[in-house]
C-alpha cells in the first residue's frame, strides 16, 4: 500500500521569550489509505502540534523548522498560505475536540456548510445544499433537511460533533486529522461517533490520524499507533504489537496505569514524577528521570530501533522480550 501522507523528521519549534520550545522534534510516520493511525500522548507531548503542523495551522511564535510533510509528492511544510487554501478542507481536513472551534455560533449550519462546499467547487447553491444534506445524513443526523437550518446552539454536543465531522467530510478528503474528537462526549455518544468514523475509513478509504491521550479508545480503532513523549515518537508500530508487547518503558507504564486493567482496589501501577518542561529537557532520552530501567547509557541520544516484535522504539533498554501485557 502506498502512503497517502508521509511525515519525515518534522520539527515544529516555538520561539518564545523564555527560549526555543521544541514542541515537535523529529517526528516521522506515514498513513495509508483507509487506515487509522493513533497518535497518543499526554499533555505537552506534541501530539496536537503535530496535527496542526500537518494542517498548516501552526501560529506564531511557532514555525516548522525542519522536515517534510509529503502529500501526493508535494511538501506541505514549504507551501504558501495560498497553496494551502486549495488543500485544507478539500484534501486534508480536521476535526477538533470542541466542535465550536469549527462552527460559527451566529450562522446557520446550512450557511456554514454551503460556504465550505462553494469554497472549493464551483457549483450552485442548490447543488451545494444537496451535497450538505447527503453528508449530514451520512454521519447519522436524523431529518437533516429540517435540522440544517438550525443554529449550532440548537444542537446537543454529540450532534454538533457530527456536524463538525460532516463538514470535514464534505469534499471526501484523503486525510482527516482528528484531535480528541470524542473526549468531551458522553460514553454512549462517543461510541456512536467512533462507529461512524470506523465505517467511514472502511467505505471511503479516508486515512485518519487520530490524536488522543486515551489508549483505550485508539486500541479498538487504530491500525498503527505512535506514542509521543516530550516532542518525539518514542514507540510506533502495529497497534496490536505495541499494545501487547510494549517495548518502551513509557508505553508500558501508560498501559499499566489504565485503571480497568488493574486489580480492583489495589494500587495502580504509576509512572513516577511528571513530564519534563520542554524548555529544559534532560539530555538524551527525555523519559530517563522517570524510567525504572534507565542507566548512564540513556544520556546519549536515542534513535528509533527496530524491536524483535516489529515495532520501532527509541530505547536501548526495551521491555522486550520479557514484557507481555495480559488482557
Amino acid at each position, binding site marked *: 500500500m502506498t502512503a497517502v501522507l508521509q511525515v519525515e523528521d518534522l520539527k515544529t519549534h516555538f520561539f518564545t521569550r523564555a527560549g526555543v520550545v521544541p514542541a515537535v522534534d523529529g517526528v516521522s510516520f506515514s498513513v495509508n489509505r483507509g487506515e487509522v493511525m493513533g497518535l497518543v500522548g499526554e499533555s505537552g507531548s506534541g501530539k496536537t502540534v503535530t496535527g496542526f503542523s500537518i494542517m498548516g495551522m501552526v501560529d506564531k511564535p511557532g514555525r516548522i523548522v525542519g522536515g517534510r510533510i509529503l502529500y501526493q509528492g508535494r511538501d506541505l511544510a514549504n507551501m504558501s498560505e495560498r497553496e494551502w487554501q486549495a488543500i485544507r478542507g478539500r484534501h486534508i481536513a480536521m476535526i477538533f475536540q470542541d466542535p465550536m472551534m469549527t462552527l460559527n455560533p451566529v450562522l446557520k449550519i446550512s450557511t456554514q456548510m454551503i460556504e465550505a462546499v462553494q469554497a472549493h467547487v464551483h457549483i450552485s447553491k442548490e447543488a451545494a445544499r444537496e451535497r450538505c444534506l447527503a453528508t449530514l445524513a451520512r454521519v447519522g443526523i436524523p431529518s437533516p433537511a429540517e435540522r440544517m437550518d438550525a443554529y449550532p446552539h440548537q444542537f446537543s454536543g454529540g450532534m454538533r460533533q457530527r456536524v463538525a465531522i460532516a463538514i470535514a467530510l464534505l469534499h471526501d478528503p484523503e486525510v482527516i486529522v482528528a484531535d480528541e474528537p470524542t473526549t468531551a462526549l458522553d460514553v454512549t455518544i462517543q461510541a456512536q461517533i467512533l462507529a461512524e468514523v470506523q465505517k467511514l475509513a472502511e467505505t471511503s478509504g479516508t486515512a485518519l490520524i487520530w490524536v488522543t491521550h486515551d489508549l483505550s479508545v485508539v486500541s479498538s480503532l487504530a491500525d498503527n499507533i505512535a506514542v509521543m513523549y516530550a516532542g518525539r515518537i518514542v514507540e510506533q508500530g502495529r497497534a496490536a504489537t505495541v499494545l501487547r508487547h510494549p517495548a518502551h518503558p513509557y508505553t508500558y507504564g501508560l498501559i499499566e496505569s489504565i485503571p*480497568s486493567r488493574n486489580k480492583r*482496589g489495589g494500587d495502580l501501577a504509576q509512572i513516577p514524577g511528571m513530564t519534563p518542561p520542554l524548555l529544559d529537557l534532560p539530555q538524551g532520552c527525555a523519559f530517563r528521570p522517570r524510567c525504572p530501567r534507565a542507566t548512564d547509557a540513556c544520556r546519549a541520544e536515542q534513535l528509533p530501533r527496530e524491536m524483535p516484535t516489529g515495532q520501532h522504539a527509541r530505547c536501548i533498554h526495551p521491555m522486550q522480550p520479557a514484557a507481555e501485557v495480559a488482557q
Partner: protein
Amino acid sequence: MSDALIEIENLSKLFREEHDMAARMAARMGVGHEPATVHAVDNVSFSIAPGEVVGLVGESGSGKSTIGRMIAGLLPATEGRILFQGADITTRNRAETKAAALQIQMIFQDPMSSLNPRMRVREIIAEAPVYHGIIKQSQAREFVADMLERVGLEPSAGDRYPHQFSGGQRQRIVIARALAVSPQFLICDESVAALDVSIQAQVLNLFMRLRRELGLAYLFISHDLGVVEHISDRVVILYLGRVVEIAPTEALYADARHPYTQALLAEVPRLSFEKRRFEPIKGEIPSPMNPPPGCHFHTRCPFAGPRCSREVPPLRHTGPRAVACHLEDGGVE
C-alpha cells in the same frame, strides 16, 4: 441501614427558570408561559457506610453533580432528607449541621478554579482549620507540612502559589486542604477526569492510601466506568435524575441488570489488542427539560414495551442490589 454514615432519602432537586421582569408582567396579565423546570434529581435514595467508596455514575444531565453538591451543602434540596450519622443536614442553620458540614468535604474536577490564585499554599491549607479552631495560628506551619507530606508533596510547597504547580500537584493541594479539617467523608466530583493517565494513576493511588490510613468514605462521582470500577465498593447508576441500578461493583460489572447499565458497560472503551466494531445504543440522551414519560430510558431501550412508557419502574431492592426496570418485575407488556 442505621449504621450508615450518609443516608439519602427521597432526595429531589428542581431547577426553575428565573423569570425576568417582562416575563413576570406577562404572567400577571395572563399571557406568560409556565417557567421551565428541570427535575435534575428525582427521588433518589441510597446510603454510604463508614469507610465505604460509592461510585456515582451517569452521563451529562444525569444529576450526579447536583447530588454531590446537595450532600456537600452547596445546594439546598427541593425535597427529601440527607442524614449524616443519623442527623438531618438539609436544615442548614443548626450548629450541629455546621459541625457535620465540616466532616463532609468536596473535591472538584478543576483544581485551578477551586484554589485562590493569590494565596500561598500554606494559607490555603491552614485557613479552614485555624478558622474552625482545630489548630492555632502558631501551629499552622507544622500542620501544613504534615498535610503536604500526607498527600505526597514537599513541605516547601507551602511557600508557593497554586500556579507554580502542575495539574496533578494542584489536585494534591486541594486534597490536602480537604483533609485539613479531618473529614470522614469526601465527595470527589470528576476529581481525576482532567488529569493525564499517568498522573491520574498517582492521584487514584493517593485516594486509596488515604482511605486505608484515615478510614475515609468517598462518594466518587465520575463518567469514567474504568476508574469507578477500580476504586468503588458499590456503584449507583443514574439516568436523567433517577437511580436505575445499585449494586456491589463486582456484581455490577459481571452481571448488569438494567438495560442502560448493560449498554453503558458495553460502550466503555477498554484496552483491546484488536480492532473492534462499535455497536452503540441508538439515540441521544433526551433533554432533562422534557424527559420521556414512564421509564426515562424507554426511548433508547432495546427491550422497551408498552408498559415502559406508561409506568415509572420503582427501584426494587433484592439483597445488596437494586434495579428500576419492568423486566425485573413482571415484564414490559
